[in-house]
């Protein structure tokens, strides 16, 4: 059995770890509520954007390369992970899903490329010699649109210049503070527009100068805003995942402290009992 002092030092170190995980849990909790606010602030923009885009796309003569499906020779995967770990399965879930999709869909590395947002994703794809076309790391916990603007517009440009023929987003969708799920979303070409909401609105717009040139400005902005929306969603999931991971770490630390305290008390009692029986037997030996 471990000595009393060993157990005591184990208890102390576990307590310190617990303090850290508890602090991280609380930090993530407050970051999560900020992230949820950010996601909420984004909703009016994205809704309005979608409304206008669907209406214009639904109008008769408007065509644009971003609306047209073409034969897929090369697929772009836009993968959003975190820069840091300690978030449970957050990073691994996304990466595994992307990896599986790639293995499943593509025979050679010429058929796809990865755009990585977040250090974990980038490192994984590099290490496994998968092509990484663009990357961005060091995104802040509460990203602004300006932070993602450049890589988002580069990704859209890749599509427009036919470097890639479709763009698929992979990220953790935020269901609730305790549940996040890996989601893949086909971003480009924009095919699922115009079906439901397009016809319902009566007002038809005048276009200044014309529908086509508006689409040229509008669609890249729309696609960028979708990427930003996914990033906000992913960030909320990241904080939620980290909060949950840290909460269970704290719970585990508590459990371990309880176990160790129990062992410590047993050992202490055993030592006392042993001392008493030594004294008693010593005294008995003297009397006889």
């Amino acid at each position, binding site marked *: 059995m471990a000595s009393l002092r060993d157990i005591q030092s184990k208890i102390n170190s576990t307590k310190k770890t617990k303090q850290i995980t508890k602090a991280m849990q609380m930090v993530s909790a407050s970051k999560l509520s900020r992230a949820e606010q*950010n996601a909420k*602030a*984004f909703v*009016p*923009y*994205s809704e*309005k*954007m979608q409304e*206008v885009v669907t209406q*214009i796309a639904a109008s008769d003569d408007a065509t644009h390369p971003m609306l047209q499906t073409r034969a897929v020779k090369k697929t772009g995967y836009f993968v959003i992970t975190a820069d840091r770990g300690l978030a449970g399965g957050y990073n691994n879930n996304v990466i595994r899903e992307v990896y599986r999709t790639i293995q499943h869909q593509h025979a050679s590395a010429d058929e796809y490329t990865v755009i990585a947002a977040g250090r974990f994703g980038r490192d994984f794809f590099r290490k496994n010699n998968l092509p990484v076309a663009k990357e961005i790391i060091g995104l802040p916990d509460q990203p*602004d*649109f*300006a932070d993602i*603007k450049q890589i988002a517009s580069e990704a859209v440009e890749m599509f427009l210049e036919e470097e890639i023929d479709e763009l698929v987003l992979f990220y953790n969708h935020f269901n609730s503070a305790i549940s996040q799920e890996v989601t893949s979303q086909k971003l480009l070409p924009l095919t699922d527009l115009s079906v439901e909401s397009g016809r319902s609105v009566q*007002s*038809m*717009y*005048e*276009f*200044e*100068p014309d529908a086509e*040139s*508006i689409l040229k*400005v*509008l669609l890249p*902005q729309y696609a*960028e*805003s979708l990427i*930003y929306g996914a990033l906000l969603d992913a960030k909320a999931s990241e904080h939620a995942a980290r909060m949950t991971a840290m909460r269970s770490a704290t719970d585990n630390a508590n459990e371990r402290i309880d176990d160790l305290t129990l062992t410590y008390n047993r050992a202490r009692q055993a030592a006392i009992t042993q001392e008493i029986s030594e004294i008693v037997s010593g005294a008995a030996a003297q009397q006889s």
Partner: protein
Amino acid sequence: MSTVTASIVTPDGPVLEEDYEMVSCTAENGELGILPGHIPLVAPLKVSSVRLQIQGRTDWVAVSGGFLEVRPDRITILAQSAERASDIDVDRAEQAKQRAEKRLQEKQANLDKIRAEQALNRAINRLDVATNAR
């Protein structure tokens, strides 16, 4: 005088939502002044200022591109970034301007040049709005 509700929305949240008598802005092919009851219209905007007038007062907002959506009772401007004149950080805009100018002087690849020009445009626009609104 009749008014129209104008709102300016960015990905980082709404910037402004109030009633105005007239909204003027610079679209890709010229100045537009929108009064209440305008027919539905969509137009892309330049990196420019938006002037919103009510009762002799004018509010200035700097927008970096985006577009304008007009309905008879409602004007919405969707921009990737927008600041009210009072929210503009003049020092930062000044620094951004100098940075962009410097980058333009160093002759670089095309893409960087375009980016620097855009950045310069945005910085100048912010400074303009901040000084005009005063």
